[in-house]
């Protein structure tokens, strides 16, 4: 007879051993992700170093109000994610479901604002290519900024979409009674991924929106 709550997998000595192993596995994955986003950010830093004035002018065309709101939205979602893991640890599965739903909702709100920004930028002609239009800076260098901007925020948005799907999966596991205080590592590991995506945004926000903001009005 199988109970609905998964038991200890046979390769582990204890639930604690099982939990720590899954956390370590997630950190290995996040290490690879760090190098991925870190490489992109390093490329951006190099380009910016080469064309500071043009990058500052281009950066002033990003939507700082929407960007700041989105930073707050994502940090709030991280708080709810941390509270979701906390509820899972204590076996309060109804609260866990509520916090998972709130986290997913804020993640979706972030995406909605992000895509609204993309819409405004498309309308303003800030998409690199033949229709690119921006005064007051070398067009090629300003386009390079927006190549970096759309690539990095786009890949970040993709990670967030995956994260929202992941939380939906966790919600289903919880509803299926497969999350118990002893066996909540799926939720903990999902939380690590969500917080990581938040950290990537913590660095993208100043790099893309804030640097050069003081340097005039583009």
């Amino acid at each position: 007879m199988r109970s609905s709550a998964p038991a200890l997998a046979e390769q582990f000595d204890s639930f604690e051993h099982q939990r720590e192993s899954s956390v370590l596995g997630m950190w290995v994955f996040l290490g690879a992700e760090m190098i991925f986003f870190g490489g992109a950010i390093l490329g951006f830093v190099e380009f910016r170093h080469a064309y500071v004035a043009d990058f500052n002018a281009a950066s002033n065309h990003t939507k700082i109000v929407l960007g700041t709101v989105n930073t707050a939205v994502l940090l709030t979602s991280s708080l709810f994610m941390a509270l979701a893991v906390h509820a899972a640890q204590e076996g309060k599965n109804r609260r866990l479901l509520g916090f998972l739903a709130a986290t997913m909702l804020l993640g979706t709100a972030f995406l909605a604002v992000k895509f609204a920004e993309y819409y405004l930028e498309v309308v303003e002609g800030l998409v690199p290519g033949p229709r690119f239009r921006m005064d007051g800076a070398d067009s090629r260098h300003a386009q390079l900024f927006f190549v970096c901007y759309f690539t990095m925020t786009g890949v970040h948005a993709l990670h967030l979409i995956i994260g929202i799907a992941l939380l939906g999966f966790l919600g289903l596991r919880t509803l299926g009674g497969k999350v118990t205080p002893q066996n909540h590592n799926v939720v903990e590991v999902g939380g690590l991924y969500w917080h990581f995506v938040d950290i990537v945004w913590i660095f993208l926000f100043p790099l893309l929106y804030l640097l050069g903001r003081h340097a005039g009005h583009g």
Partner: protein
Amino acid sequence: MDEPKASVRIYVAIYVALMALVALTTGLAYLDLAPWSATVAMVIAGAKAVLVILYFMHVRYGTRLTWVFAGAGFYFLGILFFLTLNDVLTRSWLSPFLGGTP
């Protein structure tokens, strides 16, 4: 063995600190702190990341092995940034001696 964990109160306190840092960094972006603007913005971002990693991601309460695994990514990221920027950021120092553009 009981797993050590943070309290709701700590999570909320960290959240308040994070939001304060967002307000601070956005406000400071409008001031001309040249040549320190970029440094200040990145230090604040780093502080936010450390708070998230230590508390929301539970590394503060993790075993030493967790610290090693979490630190490994930063270690290699550090090598990547340090060696690359060592080259890129110092090229202009040489151009007076080499003549011509770097």
